[in-house]
């Protein structure tokens, strides 16, 4: 899922300080799971903002809503009747949600309340780590299910590099070397032969190098 981290509250306060009515809009999808932008976080942020502005002797109305998803028009439409009552919206969905809301309500100021970080997993309660960079052409079949694009700091396709030491990456002693992980996994699987042939260059046009991407599935279209 998509991971996000709440923006410092000072930054959000600075963005909304000139408005009188602000809606805090959460998303009950990915950002709710990583405890950055779900209903709970909406309530906490709205409460903190109300207290801050009350202390500043500024009357500001802070509304709360959390949508099932902010990346689907059907759910965004749920606020169409009330969004006009506000001067701005602080969306604590991922970057996609913030943008989609801004597209749908293009006369409103839609401000981001989180920093969207990566596609990842819940390692343990309260700890999330990156696993996928959405490169557009999955090569996990040849790397023992461990992605060198996401797990190797250099994204190299033939590793490990000289910066790998004792299974750790040179960027940080706490970061495991992605290629060391791949080597160990392939060894367990008895597939070390994979290292005898170099991996050919990847088509990065399917990743961000090809510009913004689009997916269509004809059978799903109306």
């Amino acid at each position: 899922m998509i991971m996000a981290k709440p923006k410092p509250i000072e930054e959000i306060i600075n963005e909304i300080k000139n408005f009188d009515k602000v809606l805090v809009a959460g998303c009950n999808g990915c950002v709710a799971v990583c405890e950055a932008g779900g209903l709970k976080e909406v309530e906490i942020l709205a409460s903190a903002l109300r207290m801050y502005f009350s202390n500043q002797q500024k009357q500001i109305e802070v509304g709360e809503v959390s949508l099932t998803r902010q990346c689907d028009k059907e759910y965004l439409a749920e606020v169409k009747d009330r969004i006009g009552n506000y001067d701005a919206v602080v969306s604590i969905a991922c970057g996609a949600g913030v943008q989609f809301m801004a597209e749908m309500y293009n006369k409103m100021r839609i401000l981001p309340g989180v920093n969207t970080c990566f596609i990842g997993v819940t390692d343990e309660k309260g700890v999330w780590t990156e696993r996928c960079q959405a490169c557009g052409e999955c090569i996990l079949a040849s790397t023992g299910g461990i992605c060198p694009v996401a797990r190797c700091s250099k994204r190299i396709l033939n590793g490990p590099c000289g910066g790998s030491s004792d299974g750790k990456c040179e960027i940080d002693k706490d970061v495991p070397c992605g290629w060391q992980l791949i080597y160990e996994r392939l060894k367990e699987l008895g597939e070390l032969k994979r290292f005898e042939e170099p991996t050919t260059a990847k088509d990065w046009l399917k990743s961000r190098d090809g510009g913004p991407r689009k997916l269509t599935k004809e059978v799903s279209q109306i």
Partner: protein
Amino acid sequence: MTYPSNIRIVKVPCTGRVAIIHLMKALEKGADGVFVAGCMEGDCHFQSGNLRARKRVAYVKQLLETIGMEPERVAMYNLSSGEGPRFAEICQEMTDKIRQLGPNPVRFKGKRKEKAA
């Protein structure tokens, strides 16, 4: 054994039930301070309820600081259910601390008194 009459007790089955929003709402609605009275660490019937509460109190303290409020308005105490006198003592301690800070600025919306000390 008496404790200050201005203390309002909200009963929960375990302090692990106390969420961040509960502490925030208490302050937003005008409480001058909130303390969470949990069991002794290591004695939680549900294993980690009081440890979770401790983290949440610490989180709220941090949050209050970022919005310009005194983090001392929230606190976590640990005591066993048999320690009635200790509970009364904590209530007095918390009340004295909050009295020093003055009333909750949110409730008084700008008519805040100067801090007593």
